[in-house]
């Protein structure tokens, strides 16, 4: 009888580890120097939505350009983000709200600690200009087109001159649709 690789491994006890959830083993590593062995035990605050939410709005002061949460869960060599995390946690323990914590960070580290400029003062320009530019250009474009359509509607109807070549007949909407459909079928 054929036996599959997984079944064989399972029979040998490989890949189906016994439930050790109650053992809590913490055996020393063979080569502790090969790995960053100085990690701190994850505290409840590291998963706290308030802490994480605040950290996602603040920039790590190392050159990574990431937010504090991302940096401390990504760049394990960074010494700044754990310290900033501790600052956030300390303020949370003091009972401060998210906005108060952010304000405290801005007061201490300056506005560059924010991941996005405040929507006040000069910062308004940052948010408003792209949208304003698009709306202005789009509005101008639409205005010109509408104006042009009106001008066309007011334009004098050309008097047919027998000496000039005959103008092409203007198609009704229905006829235009029929032509388009026929062309589409032809293209297909």
């Amino acid at each position: 009888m054929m036996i599959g690789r997984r079944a064989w491994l399972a029979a040998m006890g490989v890949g189906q580890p016994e439930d050790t959830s109650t053992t809590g083993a913490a055996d020393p590593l063979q080569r502790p120097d090969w790995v960053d062995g100085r990690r701190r035990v994850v505290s409840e605050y590291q998963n706290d939505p308030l802490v994480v939410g605040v950290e996602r709005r603040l920039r790590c002061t190392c050159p990574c350009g990431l937010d504090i949460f991302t940096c401390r869960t990504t760049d394990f060599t960074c010494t700044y983000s754990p310290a900033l995390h501790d600052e956030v946690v300390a303020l949370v323990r003091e009972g401060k709200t998210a906005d108060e914590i952010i304000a405290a960070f801005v007061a201490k580290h300056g506005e560059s600690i924010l991941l996005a400029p405040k929507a006040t003062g000069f910062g308004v320009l940052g948010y408003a200009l792209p949208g304003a530019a698009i709306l202005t250009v789009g509005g101008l474009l639409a205005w010109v087109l509408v104006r042009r359509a009106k001008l066309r509607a007011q334009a004098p109807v050309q008097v047919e001159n027998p000496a000039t070549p005959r103008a092409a007949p203007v198609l009704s909407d229905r006829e235009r649709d029929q032509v388009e459909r026929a062309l589409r079928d032809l293209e297909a």
Partner: protein
Amino acid sequence: MNLLGEFALWTALLVAGWSAILAFATRGPARDRAAASVRQAPHAIALCLWVAAVSFWKALFSHDFSVEYVYSYSSRNLPDYFLFAAFWAGQKGSLLFWALVLATFASIAQLVTSRRYHDLLPAVAGVTSVVTGFFVLVMLVGGANPFERLPFVPPDGRGLNPQLQNPGMVIHPPMLYLGYIGMTIPFAFAVAALMARRLDSGWIHAIRRWSLVSWLFLSVGITIGMWWAYVELGWGGYWAWDPVENASLLPWLTLTAFLHSVMVQEKRGMLKRWNLSLVIGSFLLAIFGTFLTRSGVIASVHSFTQSNVGYFFLGFLLVAGVLCYTLLYTRWPSLEPEATLDSLASREAAFLFNNLVLLGIAFSVLWGTLFPILSEAVRGTKISVGPPFFNRVNVPLGLLLLLLTGIGPLIAWRRASAANLSRQFTGPVVAGLVVALGLLLAGLRDGYALAALAIAGFVTGTVAQEFIRGVRARGRLYQEPALVALGRLIARNRRRYGGYLVHLAIVVYFVAFAGGAFKVAKEATLRVGEAIEIDSPFGHRYRLTHLGVSQYQSLNRRVSAATLEVRQDGVRVGTIKSEKRQHVDSFGQPTFQPSTEVGIRSNLREDLYVVFAGTVDGTERGSFAVTVHPLVWWVWAGGVLLVVGGLVTMWPGGPEMAPRARPAPTRVEPEGVAV
């Protein structure tokens, strides 16, 4: 070989300079002979740069650590494929790679361009020679000589940054460079057409495939870059709005705008000035991206070491910008549109608004990227502009763009009647509404995600409708079975249906991006046997049990691998492994800080993403960051679909969209909008 390589670079510079002089400074009877000579120059430059490149690869593969670059970016125990890729890992090598690819493209352009456009080729050769020559000049006099020697020969190199030791490193940078560099050819044709005053739509045909190639490489490069960031950097995301990422997006956006607006020029002879502006602008943005990456003016995790080459690029950018737009200005009167926009409800108008949104996004990305510098200059205060800013500004624009992706291809040229609009859009609008309603009933309340998915439903409806109608029409006309009809439909209308596939890929991207709104993350420190639980946004629960840490030596690194058993709602689904790596040189000495390899279990719905942060007190007790990231698989699927669509669109042999002869106006029309 190093001397030969350096000699080849100097020769390439001389030939490029000579070619530029002949192309732009020759007048009178000598011009024809000069033109013949100039057209040969790209081949000579390409040959020189290939000699330099082969010499450079030889230095890398032979571990010639007397060459400063080889010492800085490789080591004796670096695998061969990474030795190959180390070519573009650093500033100097990547500059050589730029010049090499550009010279090769320039040479190919001279060989494959249709005879109809041969009169443009000397100027094209002149422009490409100037750009190639500039890159070689930066290498040779800008302090970026890839063959620079050390005063001694170290026994081993410093090795390649661990984050660059990933298959993505072999593919992503070349793809991105091919995209950036490919833009030089359309740019060269545009400048040549302006100089020669051949301002009909001919030059558009000469560059169509080059534009598509460039766009496709850039798309692939960006997508693989996202994949690389996702699997290698370990932050559980693929796009961080980093300045260098933004720099790659800018020319992609303008080139995408060009690929749409060029159809209006081909079909109706409109938007000539706009198209020239876009081609020139795309090239300048590619150079701007190079400037950002290499100048160190803006902090980025992706940028090369700060160096003086940034000043060269800034100077080149300014000079090229002023010259090209001045040239365009002098030809302005010759670029009158041959037709005017008839209606807001027309394909031309849809493409125009599509261009407006694309350029709007490009502007907002550029604005956000440069805003910190501006703020510092105006207020003296340095500020940061990160994902919250870009998402707030660009997500609505992106959704508008997605909507136009569905509208543009279906609306009639010139003027859409009410009947046309009803016939084309009733089905897709219903599809979008059904999706929105279904999601609302399923409990989705995130406004942007809901809008993205509903619009995705609408656009998918438009694409599906086009395919179904096409297949039915062929079935009626030729009595073909559906699959045969579908195959022939695509084969006979590659550009159109390839374009639809690309649009579908964009839809897939947006669906995947919408998934990002529901990412969940958790951290835990686990002893062996302990578990962490995390809830998926799809309703099930993962339980990850720490099985232990194994340590072993592999190639050029020491690995500590943590394995976790994964159960989904109590059912064992497998294991997941994340590693800490300490790279070492051939003497066993650590070369870089320890790096992390993430563990990923991916399926169509979501990715389970585990990062092994390290251990506590030198025991197997490990710290982990676990993320459930919905719909990530679809980002990569979108990339594949985009490539397929792009290849279908540009595959040779399909019917070209030739400019149509337009009859003289038959009725009195007021002055149109000159666009």
